[in-house]
């Protein structure tokens, strides 16, 4: 079976935006995720062992759509209490007063869909998003790769199991048919047209993509299911319904090509996570961050990339989001390494208000060059050095970890400078004075002890050009305790200690 690909947009370069049309010979798979938002909330609870989480697991949760004043998703606990989708808020709260309600947010589901698509993209090539709750996959080409539909479906199931979401899947030879089957919750995984047609026959048209007006019209003449529809001549139907609905009818019958835009994986990493309850303690936040890091690790791993910089936005209650930036001195991708850096920095962060959501993003990453490390090279130590520096900087702050640099200046205060790590330049040939102390006092202190002069004087007159002129006679002195001091005399015969010969 060959499929004809008609490219409607002629610019081949913009491959992303091309709308593709297919004939009715391709097999499609539709994945319908009825409770995606609910699943994403429940998932954030699972696997955590703390007491608060266990409590939350017993909680009846429902997703509520305020526009229609209906519950749109209920979890198992809520279902057992008699709550059903489509109920109004008043009835629901009467049935169960302790119900935890979340506002329906299509954004969360779109995000979830995209994440699933991203993972499936590793296994299958042609995926189209049908937000907020659906995914369309073109199976036809994959059949050859995976030999048959059973193998292919098993692998997809395995991948979907990781997400721990509810889904209905159905195959058909048109997108609309597959969608209708999936919306009915029918599990049709087959390549046989006959079986598909049988299953489709009983499907109600009410939940298809047709205009509501047209659905009503067809209902009035007794057409409720696909079977009834297929018995009516097509011209009869065409007279009654709009052009849009007609297109859907044709697609359902397998007589019109489908149009889809295929998914391309994102080039940047974004992960938004709504928290089940607000967190004030940064330590608890780490548990949540770890989940996002796990996703980041997978994202980078499949791209063979590493990153040096990630950002986390903490969404605070009644406050502007807190933006935190984390930097590593060398590119890394493993979650443990990131967690190390994040934990150290978070220790110093004070949350001014409880956090209700976090978002992690990684905009830049680099592809890891292929390198064969052998066991005894210095490379691993080089990496250990860089990771040590990032750990030190993230806990102590940049100002406390420094390099020392030498500048050719006769004034001791200027000759030696402390600078932050990445600003170090290679030392050129420098002319050095001998017999200089190891430790210089930040401010010269008046000399109080009695000292014997060993060496001196050495006159330093310099700095007339930048308003920090010094005129000093330096001596090396030793006191009776054996301490060697670097002392100087000012023109007005004041003595100061400036350093120690450590």
């Amino acid at each position: 079976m060959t499929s004809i690909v008609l490219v409607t947009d002629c610019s081949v370069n913009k491959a992303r935006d091309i709308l593709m049309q297919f004939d009715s010979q391709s097999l499609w798979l539709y994945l319908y995720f009825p409770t995606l938002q609910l699943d994403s909330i429940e998932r954030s609870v699972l696997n955590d062992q703390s007491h608060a989480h266990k409590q939350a697991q017993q909680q009846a949760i429902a997703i509520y759509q305020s526009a229609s004043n209906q519950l749109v998703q209920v979890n198992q606990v809520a279902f057992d209490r008699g709550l059903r989708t489509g109920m109004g808020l008043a009835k629901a709260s009467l049935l169960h007063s302790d119900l935890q309600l979340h506002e329906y947010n299509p954004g969360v589901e779109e995000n979830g869909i995209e994440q699933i698509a991203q993972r499936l993209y590793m296994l299958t090539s042609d995926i189209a998003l049908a937000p907020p709750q659906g995914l369309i996959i073109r199976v036809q080409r994959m059949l050859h790769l995976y030999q048959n539909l059973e193998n292919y479906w098993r692998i997809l199931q395995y991948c979907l199991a990781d997400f721990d979401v509810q889904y209905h899947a159905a195959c058909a030879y048109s997108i609309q048919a597959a969608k209708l089957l999936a919306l009915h919750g029918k599990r049709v995984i087959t390549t046989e047209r006959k079986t598909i047609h049988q299953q489709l026959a009983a499907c109600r048209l009410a939940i298809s993509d047709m205009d509501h007006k047209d659905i009503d019209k067809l209902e009035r003449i007794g057409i409720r299911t696909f079977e009834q529809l297929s018995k009516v001549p097509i011209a009869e139907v065409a007279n009654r319904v709009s052009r849009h609905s007609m297109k859907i009818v044709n697609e359902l019958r397998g007589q019109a090509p489908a149009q889809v835009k295929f998914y391309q994986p994102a080039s940047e990493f974004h992960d938004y996570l709504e928290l089940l309850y607000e967190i004030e303690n940064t330590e608890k936040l780490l548990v949540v961050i770890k989940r996002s890091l796990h996703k980041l690790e997978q994202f980078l791993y499949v791209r063979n990339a590493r990153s040096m910089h990630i950002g986390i936005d903490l969404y605070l209650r009644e406050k502007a989001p807190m933006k935190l930036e984390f930097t590593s001195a060398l590119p890394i991708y493993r979650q443990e390494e990131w967690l190390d850096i994040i934990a150290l920095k978070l220790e110093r962060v004070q949350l001014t208000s409880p956090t209700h959501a976090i978002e992690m993003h990684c905009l830049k990453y680099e592809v890891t060059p292929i390198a064969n490390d052998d066991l005894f090279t210095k490379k691993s130590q080089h990496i250990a050095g860089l990771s040590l520096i990032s750990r030190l900087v993230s806990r102590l702050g940049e100002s406390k970890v420094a390099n020392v640099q030498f500048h050719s200046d006769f004034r001791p205060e200027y000759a030696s400078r402390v600078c932050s790590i990445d600003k170090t330049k290679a030392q050129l040939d420098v002319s050095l004075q001998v017999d200089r102390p190891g430790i210089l006092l930040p401010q010269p202190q008046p000399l109080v002890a009695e000292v014997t002069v060993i060496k001196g004087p050495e006159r330093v007159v310099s700095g007339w050009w930048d308003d920090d002129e010094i005129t000093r006679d330096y001596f090396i002195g030793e006191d009776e305790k054996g301490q060697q001091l670097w002392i100087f005399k000012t023109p007005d015969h004041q003595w100061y200690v400036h350093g120690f010969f450590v």
Partner: protein
Amino acid sequence: MNPILHELQNKQWVWSATSAKQQEQQKPTSTGFATLDQALNAGFPRAGMIHVQSKLGCGEFQLLLKIIQQQDSDQRHRFWVIVSPPGNVNAEFLLNHNVDLARLLVIHKTSDEEALWATEQCVKSGACAGIFMWHKSLTHLQIRKLEIAAQQGKSYCIWFDNSEHMRTNLPLNLSLTLQRNGEQVNVNINKQKHGWAKAPVKLPLPLHCRQRFRAKQRQRIAQADVVNLHSR
């Protein structure tokens, strides 16, 4: 593992690359002074903590900097870290002692707690050849912790102690007291892990100008002994 190989290994008939490294590790580092090497049973241990008690400014840092100079070439890429120095570290002094400034980190303006944390991190990371720290006093537990970390990371943890009173009963492997006496530094070995107690060692640690002065003097004496045959 293969039982034959296992047995051979038990008998130490099999040479492995890792054991070669260990043997090398155990070889002490020379102090740069023959007399001190002798007193310390061939030099400083290969890793671990060294306690140096002295007044500030006795040449203690200079003496221990010899460790950097004695370092093997394959250790050159490792960092040296100076933790909470009692003032600003002078770059000119370090360059005079052939220290590569790019491989030197300074951790300063920290609290005691932060300094200890940083020390432990550096020492155990394996990326540092050693650290020099100035610290007022360390407890029993802190010393044990740093010692284990230093052994683990195969690095030195050199503790400069400028306090007056003697410290006994601390779980140190090597403890020295330095006292300057003119151009010499008296090194008293308070404690070391192996061998008997040794008498104090006197090391010449003069200023650079004095070294030149001595060299000239020696030259003059040597020249005085030469009878010039072709003198006019």
